[in-house]
């Protein structure tokens, strides 16, 4: 017994000794990371988009005498990877992400503020620039904008025949619907696509405060307009104008193949389909989205992809330089030619050459009637419940009002749970 106590005493004595010597890092944080500048930059570019910046990067390397490594990674995934790779030192200096992740990125401190003056800001379209700002600070520069648009198969329907509004498409779809043949197809069971209808009738995701910021407490997804919009959507499903229960995440692949196989006359999709359709050799045309039955335009979400500087960059100044260079008018134009991503540069939108393409015309046109995908962290909580509600509407399992009320309730609960009191 006595021996044990003696041992214990000795051991704990040693413990305290170790603890006392443990007094943390010797030097303060002002130096350290900043001083060890590397002459190498890493940029994470979106999948299959590196081809658009290769030339520009080579130019940049020459001018600044650095090596820049380009790594391709799905752009929606990059922020998640940065969380681990950043602190580990295996992260990028420059990366790209969708605008709606900006809120989280800033809250977690993964993205670095950059110095962008008014003149530089005015190069880009206002909404695109807006997506890069949180509380008045700029965290990146827009790389490309996306909205949804209407693709039509010229073999099935000519430009003149295109119905003007959704009502017209409804009737057209009814006419041509037989066997495996469809008129207009859209992924209205997903928030991203359905929102263009809902908000055209007056629904909205988050209301705005007087200073233009989003108010996560004001959710307009179950107001009168939203329900009216949902009813409009429901008709397409009720009449069997969409393939039985075209629902779920795989939907995008489904309407893609139906369109390429000539089984659908028109689909609503984004610019990411441009290349696949071209490769598949479809003779397609592009137009902006049809009007709604109430005469309003469909209000699609604008998605902004951006170049941002990682907080963990050891060479942030140069990285910032690279961001500015890659988002410049000159490089944006090359990028557009190579990757068909529509740049957010105002001057290019007026450029004859760029405007010649139907896609950029459609996107530019659509952008006027569209809202930015909200970039506050609370937006994370919107997608899933709303998708679920739309799915139950699409499959006829519940009525729009009921389903949307439920969704909003879920969203509010989620926001309270994940963002409450913060």
């Amino acid at each position, binding site marked *: 017994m006595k021996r044990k106590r003696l041992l214990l005493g*000795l051991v704990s004595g040693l413990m305290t000794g170790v603890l006392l010597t443990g007094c943390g890092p010797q030097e303060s944080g002002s130096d350290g990371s900043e001083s060890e500048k590397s002459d190498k930059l890493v940029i994470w570019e979106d999948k299959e988009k590196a081809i658009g910046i290769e030339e520009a990067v080579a130019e940049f390397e020459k001018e600044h005498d650095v090596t820049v490594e380009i790594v391709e990674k799905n752009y929606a995934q990059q922020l998640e990877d940065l969380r681990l790779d950043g*602190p580990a030192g295996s992260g990028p200096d420059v990366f790209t992400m969708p605008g709606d992740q900006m809120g989280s990125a800033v809250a977690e401190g993964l993205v670095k503020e950059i110095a962008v003056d008014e003149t530089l800001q005015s190069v880009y379209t206002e909404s695109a620039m807006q997506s890069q700002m949180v509380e008045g600070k700029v965290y990146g520069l827009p790389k490309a904008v996306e909205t949804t648009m209407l693709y039509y198969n010229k073999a099935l329907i000519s430009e003149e025949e295109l119905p003007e509004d959704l009502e017209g498409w409804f009737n057209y779809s009814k006419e041509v619907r037989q066997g495996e043949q469809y008129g207009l197809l859209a992924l209205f069971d997903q928030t991203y696509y359905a929102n263009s209808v809902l908000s055209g009738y007056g629904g909205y995701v988050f209301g705005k405060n007087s200073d233009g910021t989003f108010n996560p407490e004001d959710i307009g997804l179950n107001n009168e307009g939203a329900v009216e919009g949902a009813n409009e959507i429901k008709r397409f499903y009720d009449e069997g104008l969409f393939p039985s*229960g075209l629902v779920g995440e795989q939907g995008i692949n489904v309407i893609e193949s139906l369109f390429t196989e000539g089984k659908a006359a028109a689909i609503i999709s984004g610019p990411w389909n441009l290349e696949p359709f071209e490769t598949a050799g479809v003779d397609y045309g592009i137009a902006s989205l049809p009007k709604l039955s109430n005469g309003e335009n469909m209000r699609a979400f604008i998605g902004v992809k951006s170049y941002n500087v990682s907080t963990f960059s050891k060479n942030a100044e140069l990285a910032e330089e690279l961001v500015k260079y890659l988002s410049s008018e000159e490089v944006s134009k090359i990028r557009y030619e190579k990757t068909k991503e529509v740049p957010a540069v105002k001057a290019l939108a007026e450029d004859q050459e760029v405007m010649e393409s139907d896609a950029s015309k459609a996107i530019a046109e659509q952008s006027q009637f569209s809202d930015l995908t909200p970039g506050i962290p609370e937006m994370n909580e919107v997608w899933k419940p709303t998708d*679920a509600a739309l*799915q139950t509407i699409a*499959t006829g399992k519940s009525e729009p009002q009921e389903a949307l009320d439920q969704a909003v309730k879920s969203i509010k609960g989620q926001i309270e*749970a994940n963002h409450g009191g*913060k």
Partner: protein
Amino acid sequence: MQHRKVALLLSIVPGFGQFYHRQWLKGLLFLLITISFFIAFKDLLNMGLWGIVTLGTEIPRDNSIFLLAEGLIALIVIFLGLIVYYLNLRDAYKTGVMRDNKQTLYTLRQQYEHVLLKGYPYLISGPAFLLLLFAVVFPILFSFAIAFTNYDLYNSPPAKLVEWVGFSTFKEIFTVDIWRSTFFDVLAWTIVWTIVASTLQVALGIFLAVVANQKEIRFKKLFRTILVLPWAVPGFVTILIFAGLFNDSFGAVNNDILAALGIDAIPWLTDPNWSRFALIMMQGWLGFPYIFLVTTGVLQSIPEDLYEAATIDGASVFSKFRHITMPMILLSISPIIITQFTFNFNNFNIIYLFNAGGPAVPDSTAGGTDILVSWIYKLTMQSSQYALAAALTIMLSVVVVSIALWQFRKSSTFKEGA
């Protein structure tokens, strides 16, 4: 003063106790180990211990989470060091006792042999336990530590430092309505899932083994091979294939099979109840071959004369099954059956790969088919609710461990006297 006390006191500096006993080589060994320990781990111990207490003081220099992990590693290293230290003290003391009792001390060679003999089991299992310490214990310590911090989306490095907050996360699980209701929903489904899916696969496996092993059945080998196939194909592959087959709109189950039978398409992925049903069926498919294999082995080992005797007594096929086959099977494979339950309780892959825990359901932050593990995974990886996920992990562990402990008590494997 007795030798044992002197030696013990001197051993505060490792090796000196041994020097006192004139065991120079051993003493030197202890001393060297101690010195190299401090040289090798000086930085780790310094930073780690400071980090685990403060979780960092300055942004962006300090990353709380990294500091916490380093601190835990430092604690493990200290733990290992203390074991050596303890051995040092014990050795000096014991040798001292021998001297006090006027016994002759071991020679070097004797000592070496003694260590080899007494320490043999430790020697051969030591490396494995070292590995376990880092692969199993360290992550668990980390989870436990995280549960007592405020680590979430709004308190995460590099923007913010993480702080120790005590039990407040646990409190949140029971006081915030949506967390509480989600927790109990998920818990309920996890229990149902574990029981139903495990029972199904076990029952199916036993049933098919009995059917396929009847004496009269021909092509036994062929049937056996086919029935074992689901076990031979990697599970993650099969689950992803099933996810495709069950696709509401374009999966073969709806379009080919049910359509051929004249049944309307079933919302496998969008209706929670159908999703659950599909999952249980799939787990039956995936899990029965294992039981089938084992049961087949048991069946082949049941002595034939048991049945013959029963036949003479006029027992029917069914009563032979009930009174001979079934008890034999249950007796021999019950430990395996238990592992099936624990496996399904933590069966993350099938839930996540099939439908990512979906579909979404109202009044819940988890999906309709989420079990506790997949919910924890989603909280960590998707909602950045790290502390909450860790707190749930702890609560979950308490449940699992107590059930398992109760089971182990009943099973005999760890009783002595084997």
